[in-house]
């Protein structure tokens, strides 16, 4: 069969909403795009453990400590599912991790911002997980089967995290003046970076068109971003807090909130490595990996020994 015919069958499946599975023929670019996107998503989960892990030792109550630890652990689990999903496309976990550590692979820029106060734990849950969910709900219907199925599990946990984050802010919003100030400050710092999570404007996004044709993505960056603004602009009222955007205003004719211009210089700077924590985040990952080398080697050496002993016994 010619490539052209294979491509036709492939696109046909996509158009009919039939999932693409690991052993199916797929265009090389489809494979590459999925590996890039899924591994980037996995790396985001793993790097994302760092800013929240930053507050585990200082969580203000035993309940909050347990919730936070469980949440960070969930993220590790998400990373695992996603690395496994990417492996079905022929990329090894080692290779993906090497690419992260060398800077070749990206992760979500949002995790290059620091978590400065306890309120950031709530704001990250509410805004960052909230933004992530919109993207992930869409990905539950993505065309690559293993990715879509991993996303279904992840979405359940993520929406729980978002509610926990909101609830944590709700407690602060009803607390002392210091707590209310802490809450507003966290929202002020996390709002714009959260909007940037949806990526460049559609007019400037290089990967969007093909991804939509292949149903890897089903909504554009700007559509998802609008959906997020509409959702958060309502929820923030329940907290009695505000979003730091003087242009935020309900537009009756569009039936959407209008909002101000994102600082794209900041966005591109953080993507290029100049965010407040890019260096620290990557260093922390590399350090954990390097310090774990002897542990992984020992586990492997022991497994080999054990196997040869079992073989010797059988013989």
């Amino acid at each position: 069969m010619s490539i052209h015919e294979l491509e036709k069958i492939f696109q046909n499946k996509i158009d009919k909403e039939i999932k693409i599975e690991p052993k199916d023929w797929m265009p090389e670019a489809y494979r590459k795009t999925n590996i890039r996107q899924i591994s980037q998503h996995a790396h985001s989960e793993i790097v994302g453990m760092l800013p929240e892990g930053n507050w585990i030792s200082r969580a203000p109550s035993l309940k909050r400590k347990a919730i936070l630890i469980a949440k960070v652990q969930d993220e590790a689990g998400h990373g695992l599912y996603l690395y496994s999903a990417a492996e079905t496309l022929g990329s090894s976990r080692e290779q993906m991790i090497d690419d992260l550590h060398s800077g070749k692979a990206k992760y979500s820029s949002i995790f290059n911002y620091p978590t400065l106060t306890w309120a950031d734990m709530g704001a990250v849950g509410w805004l960052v997980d909230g933004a992530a969910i919109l993207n992930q709900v869409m990905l539950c219907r993505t065309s690559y089967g293993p990715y879509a199925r991993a996303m279904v599990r992840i979405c359940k946990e993520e929406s729980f995290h978002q509610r926990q984050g909101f609830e944590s802010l709700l407690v602060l919003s009803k607390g002392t003046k210091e707590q209310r100030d802490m809450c507003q400050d966290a929202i002020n710092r996390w709002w714009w970076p959260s909007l940037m999570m949806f990526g460049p404007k559609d007019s400037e996004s290089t990967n969007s068109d093909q991804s939509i044709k292949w149903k890897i993505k089903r909504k554009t960056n700007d559509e998802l971003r609008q959906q997020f603004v509409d959702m958060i602009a309502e929820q923030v009222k329940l907290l009695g807090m505000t979003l730091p955007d003087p242009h935020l205003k309900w537009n009756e004719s569009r039936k959407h909130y209008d909002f101000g211009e994102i600082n794209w210089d900041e966005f591109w700077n953080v993507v290029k490595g100049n965010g407040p924590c890019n260096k620290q985040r990557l260093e922390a990952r590399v350090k954990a990996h390097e310090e774990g080398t002897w542990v992984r080697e020992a586990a492997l050496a022991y497994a080999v020994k054990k196997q040869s002993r079992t073989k010797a016994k059988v013989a």
Partner: protein
Amino acid sequence: MSQTINQTLQLADTCLILGQRNSEWCAHGPILEQDIAITNITLDLIGQARNFYQYAATLISKNENKNITEDTLAYLRTEREFKNFLICELPNGDWANTVLRQFFFSCFQLLLFEELEKNSDTQLAAIATKSLKEIKYHIKWSSEWVIRLGDGTEESNNRINNAVQQLWPYTGEFFMPADYEIISVSSLKEKWLQSIKDVFDEATLTIPQNIFMQSGGKDGVHTEHLGYVLSELQYLQRVYPGAEW
């Protein structure tokens, strides 16, 4: 009454401080699966600590007619009031040190909780029963690591041997009775040694002999490390007194 309270606080403090230390691994583990595993153990320990603190809080509230919560006990007591074993508060060190500490502690906790389960205090007995399921997994996980590292590579064998030298002096405290303890801990020593020996044999490790044993944690006389652990743990409650979180 005060005997039960002190005993309960000792159990709570021990689980909390070890959980606090283990939680430092979260997001920094040697491999993703093991990051998840140690974090599971951390969550179990914090859960156990909460059960004990909640019980102690009920007893103290009743006794002193005050409104004491689990957080009052975990966040507003000082260095000299904490009763945890010294071994729990020691810095994590490397992976060998961390898994070995967990192994020593979990083996002791198993024996202690099997006794506690038979105690006439039904609340303590119930917490022990619930925790035992978790502890058995902690032993399985940590003993497998001790064996793997002991019988793995030359480096891992060196590292776990170092960990044995570092930690052994802190194991004697398990079996030195404090006046408030309701279980005869000294009687658990032989069984504990046997369970360590079984795993050490497989791990090609030897049990150190004639080592001086450190103690004091049970009576609130700690290492210099505990003050720093509590500074971090209690920071927000100390900076914003009376706030709800």
